């Protein structure tokens, strides 16, 4: 596969991520911030996000497994997760978090557990997608090409 094809593939893939709502404009902002002085800004932020998220998800699972669930704590974790996912632009994860917070307020255990599953699912999907994206980028760079910068106006 030549560089041009790979670049087109990358563009297609990125496009699909936006269409399907996995990422939103915030992600583009991140990409904008990446420049010569800060060549791997996006990767850094994304890996920080992954670390953070794994930790939060573990805490959440633990909190919901307790006999007496401390909904305030759960809500605090979800709030954190929502904050980080919206900073990244992981739209679906953020939406799932919003719904989760609603159920936390209602103190509905079953719905919360279900929501947690949903959040985890969304997170893993987006993690997967982002890893694929990075892999494609690495391939292009490896092949000597450059990452096409997508200028979007919102």
């Amino acid at each position, binding site marked *: 596969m030549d560089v041009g094809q790979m670049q087109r593939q990358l563009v297609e893939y990125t*496009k699909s991520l*936006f*269409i399907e*709502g996995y990422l*939103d*404009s*915030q992600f583009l*902002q*991140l990409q*904008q*911030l990446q*420049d010569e002085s*800060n060549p791997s*800004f996006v990767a*850094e*932020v994304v890996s*920080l*996000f992954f670390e*953070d998220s794994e930790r939060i998800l573990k805490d959440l699972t633990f909190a919901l497994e307790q006999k007496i669930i401390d909904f305030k704590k759960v809500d*605090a974790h979800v*709030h*954190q997760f929502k*904050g*980080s*996912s*919206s*900073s*990244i632009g992981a*739209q679906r994860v953020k*939406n799932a978090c919003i719904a989760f917070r609603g159920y936390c307020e209602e103190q509905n255990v079953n719905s919360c557990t279900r929501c947690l599953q949903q959040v985890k699912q969304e997170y893993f999907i987006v993690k997967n997608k982002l890893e694929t994206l990075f892999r494609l980028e690495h391939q292009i760079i490896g092949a000597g090409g450059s990452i096409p910068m*997508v*200028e*979007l*106006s*919102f």
Partner: protein
Amino acid sequence: MIMDCNCIEPPPGDELLTKYQYISDFFIALAYFSIPLELIYFVKKSAVFPYRWVLVQFGAFIVLCGATHLINLWTFTVHSKTVAVVMTTAKVLTAVVSCATALLLVHIIPDLLSVKTRELFLKNKAAELDREMGLIRTQEETGRHVRMLTHEIRSTLDRHTILKTTLVELGRTLALEECALWMPTRTGLELQLSYTLRQQNPVGYTVPIHLPVINQVFSTNRAVKISPNCPVARLRPQAGKYMPGEVVAVRVPLLNLSNFQIYDWPGVSSSYALMVLMLPSGSARQWHLYELELVEVVADQVAVALSHAAILEESMRARDQLLEQNGALDRARREAETAIHARNDFLSVMNHEMRTPMHAVIALSSLLQETELTPEQRLMVETILKSSNLLVTLINDVLDLSRLEDGSLQLDAATFNLHSVFKEVVNLIKPVASVKKLSLTLHLAPDLPVYAIGDEKRLMQTILNVVGNAVKFSKEGGVSIIAFVAKVESFRDARIPDFIPVLNDNQFYLRVQVKDSGSGINPQDIPTLFTKFAQTQSPTARNSGGNGLGLAICKRFVNLMEGHIWIDSEGIGKGCTATFIVKLGLPDRSNESKAPFVHKILGNHGPTNFAGLKVLFLDDNGVSRTVTKGVLVHLGCDVTTASSSEECLRVVSHEHKVIFMDVCSGIEGYDLVERIHQKFTKRQDRPLIVALTGNTNKVTKETCVRVGMDGLILKPVSVDKMRGVLSELLEHRVLFETI
């Protein structure tokens, strides 16, 4: 000497006779002597004896008679002269006394006889008095019964108890055989047997109310004796051999609330009940006057008690009704509140849900714009993009609507190109119109200023809405838009009676008329057009599609712009004209308006390089800290980050020019502001404190202002936005983003 005695010697054979005479005389004397003794004894014993003198006389008479007979004893034998003299004296005395007594008795005996008569008379009188006393006692007892009855009757407010008690007590007091109460039926034409004394459950006998005997009873308030054979009195089968007892009937007025007039009680009652009282049959008792009076009194009391019971019933009923109504009102209020909450929730959720796909559309249209396109396609894509932007604005305005109701929406004021607004609207609508084969014409008056000051976005939205409606509801013909400056004279329009135009030199009224040749509106429906969500009922009217929100929003915008909007139509099928007038400002050529707002600073205004600007950023979320730091670094700032209030306080110094604080990540930033203010007393040295929040809540904004923050911006913050924010802050030292 024997010659002395003149007595004749008795014949010698009469010695026996002499003996008997002797004995008899003796006894007579004895008797005569004992009678006065008896008399004296008994008179002494009796207390009252008015004739003592008679007694003395009589006593004397008797004694002398006795003495005579005693002395006679001596005369049987030869006796001396002395005895004869004594005998004669005694006899003479006796004669005198007895004559005197006889004479006296003539006076006395009638008297004695009359004593007997008087005694008889007194006995009769005593008997009579006894009878009368018996009567009085009965009456008094009856009076007591009445008082007790009244007390019983008046002590309860239950109609049934009142009537039952009345019958029972009357029956007892008057020793009645039967007592019955006939009440008028609902129709008022019959009397129905409602209560009886002896029978437990009276079967519903009814009797027509217009019987003569009943009329007679109803016409007077006295108790009336009636025949035992009349229908109301015939309650029990005839006992047979006995004469039925006398029957009395009395009316009982049934009073309603309306019958109470102070000076005319009981006034005119609309209906009466009939009380029938029967004496026991075969008792030969008669109704006494006092018994009738008793019955009348009781009937009155019952009437009063019943009326009280009726009043009580009424007021209980009224109270229940009120309770019910209160309950219903409460429920309605809660339902209304729930509905309002639901609507608000719905609006906010829908708003959020609507933004997401819109972003996708905008994103992809932008992406599409970057690709290879033919000029036609490019035009189409640009139109799509513009429409989507407008749509995003509309979505924001759906949210605005709830804020419009709070009155918290404020119009932006900026200079914009008025002519191009109209042209854009035409461009947007033209494709749709040409598909429907409608002609679209725009006429701008020559004196219409090119530039105006106002809220461009919302003005365009209003014009677009009105023109859009015109196109939507026209099937043929065309739509024409005319815009001109309204002259003050034209305001004396019957349709806008309350409109008082107030202008100063920098303002003008823009008048826009959109005429279409469509299906028209029924003049009756015109008032409801501007009501939110209201749809007119007639099928030919303008209700196909649409959510009914557009015109309501337009009206509010127009009102905010101190204007007026209305629609005229001749009728169905005759098209209609929508007109609105809004106040706009005239731009001063020398200087631009200086309102600090953020929306327009999306271009590359101001310094793009904030080299070395020391900024402190506080956020406890690691990822968003990194991202925002990246943004700030990209703009050239020297960024320090802190993840807690304590760290912030530790690190902050007078070199930091701006502190950004994320206030929705749980940090209580508000008292941090206080402490920072304390740390930096001199205003010039103090860093500007700006809050970052994702919360579009007025309360948040107000709290930030209150604690003394210098600014508030909404997340998410893009590079361009941050650039604008920083330049604004450095220039004006305050920035509160409109929420």
